[in-house]
């Protein structure tokens, strides 16, 4: 097979993936492992035991300065005033003035002078450019520092599954006291571990418990190898996609992007239209309102697999699948879809697959959470 890796960006774990026999693919300009043999086995490892993902292509961005909270109040659609305790995290969209999605990200609060964002790989550069422009425009005087390249770069490893925390503590025993206490969507920074300073966040993209761990890029290979030795199964982006889809979690660039109103992409729960606070895109969202619903589909007939961009024929009009796959947990084809208003959970709709129209049921998301099938 031809290698086209020369022009692609690589994470600090690239050599470790290749040594483990990973099948590498071009993922938005990054040379990333799609699987290490079987995507389905990796998927089941995360649902039933523990797996890990290299997510170092995502970008940590530190925002520092006196005005960081007020800057973020205007920058992101969720309300950062929900973040009052050090280490607390918040999922949010960052919107264009016209109300569409620049990116989805996680904001961590560490102090009134320091918030940390983790943004998507392919959007990091435009995100930082946008934040720099806003910083200047609003005279916020922040220091905005990317932590993906150069000195002080972080690598990110997501350790996920019912046994993930226990396995992570085997490798990072120094973090156990602090990280055993934290609830989901919280993080701690522990300075003196055998792998240097690490950030341990109880977050993820799989619907399972676990940690996302930021470790210095120059220590990450030994950290990864220690996790392998502790019995954590490396999992590729293929399993990451089926896991997040079962968990009903949006993927930027697929379920929403700069052409999509987040209210139509199932993200209303992350948009704060209640508080007085103004933020970029608020007015546009208030004007446009919600014009579509974001729901799950389960294919009920044989004849194919649900995939992105397939048309969905409903009594109320047409919808579109934004993400679809074969669910390894449910052993059925499932999808996330943007459907017309008025479609209800429990309805039967028809998906156009090649020359057929196949029946599918509309279900509430997520499909799977903490190893259990919720949507039937």
């Amino acid at each position: 097979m031809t290698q086209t890796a020369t022009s692609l960006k690589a994470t600090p774990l690239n050599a470790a993936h290749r040594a483990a026999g990973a099948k590498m693919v071009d993922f938005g300009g990054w040379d990333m492992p799609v699987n290490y043999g079987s995507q389905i086995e990796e998927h089941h490892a995360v649902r039933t035991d523990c797996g890990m993902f290299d997510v170092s292509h995502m970008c940590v961005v530190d925002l520092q300065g006196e005005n960081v909270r007020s800057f973020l109040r205007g920058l992101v659609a969720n309300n950062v005033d929900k973040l009052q305790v050090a280490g607390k995290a918040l999922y949010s969209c960052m919107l264009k003035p016209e109300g569409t999605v620049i990116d989805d990200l996680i904001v961590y609060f560490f102090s009134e002078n320091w918030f940390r964002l983790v943004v998507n790989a392919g959007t990091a550069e435009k995100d930082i450019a946008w934040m720099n422009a806003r910083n200047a425009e609003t005279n916020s005087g922040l220091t905005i520092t990317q932590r993906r390249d150069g000195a002080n770069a972080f690598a990110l490893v997501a350790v996920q599954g019912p046994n993930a925390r226990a396995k992570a503590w085997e490798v990072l025993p120094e973090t156990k006291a602090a990280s055993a206490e934290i609830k989901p969507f919280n993080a701690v920074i522990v300075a003196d571990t055998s792998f240097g300073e690490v950030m341990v966040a109880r977050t993820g993209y799989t619907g399972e418990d676990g940690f996302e761990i930021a470790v210095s890029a120059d220590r990450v290979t030994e950290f990864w190898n220690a996790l392998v030795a502790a019995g954590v199964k490396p999992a590729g982006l293929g399993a990451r996609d089926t896991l997040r889809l079962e968990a009903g979690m949006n993927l930027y660039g697929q379920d929403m992007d700069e052409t999509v109103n987040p209210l139509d992409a199932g993200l209303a729960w992350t948009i704060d239209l209640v508080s007085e606070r103004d933020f970029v895109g608020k007015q546009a969202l208030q004007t446009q309102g919600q014009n579509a619903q974001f729901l799950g589909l389960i294919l009920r007939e044989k004849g194919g697999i649900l995939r992105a961009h397939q048309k969905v024929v409903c009594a109320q009009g047409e919808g579109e699948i934004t993400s679809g796959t074969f669910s390894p947990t449910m052993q059925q084809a499932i999808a996330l879809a943007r459907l017309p208003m008025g479609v209800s959970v429990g309805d039967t709709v028809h998906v156009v697959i090649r020359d057929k129209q196949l029946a599918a049921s509309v279900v509430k998301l997520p499909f799977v959470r903490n190893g259990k099938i919720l949507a039937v």
Partner: protein
Amino acid sequence: MNVPADLKYTTSHEWVRTEADGTITVGITEFAQDALGDIVFVDLPKVGTALEAGKDCAVVESVKAAGDIYAPVTGEVVAINEELADAPESINADAFAAWLFKLKPSNIADVDALMNAEAYAKNIA
């Protein structure tokens, strides 16, 4: 990667075996199954369907993608591998054993024009 010497091949990664009764058996290659990953669905033509060389006639779907299968030569479908409906993953396990369908070629000489193992091995190198 395994490329059996006794088979013929297409540029779209189907393998073809000529049987003693003048029919041909068609499957996808080791290379194709590896590129697709875990296979979860196979859609085969009906027995009796007339296929035209180079036209899509079946679909093999993995968790991550759908792959079209093209008729290697013109002919009529005389059998399909029914077992694949319940065990599509058998293609991953042994791509050269888990055949898709059998064809009666309109002109058996068309099969000779397909690539031999050596040419196919170069094609995927």
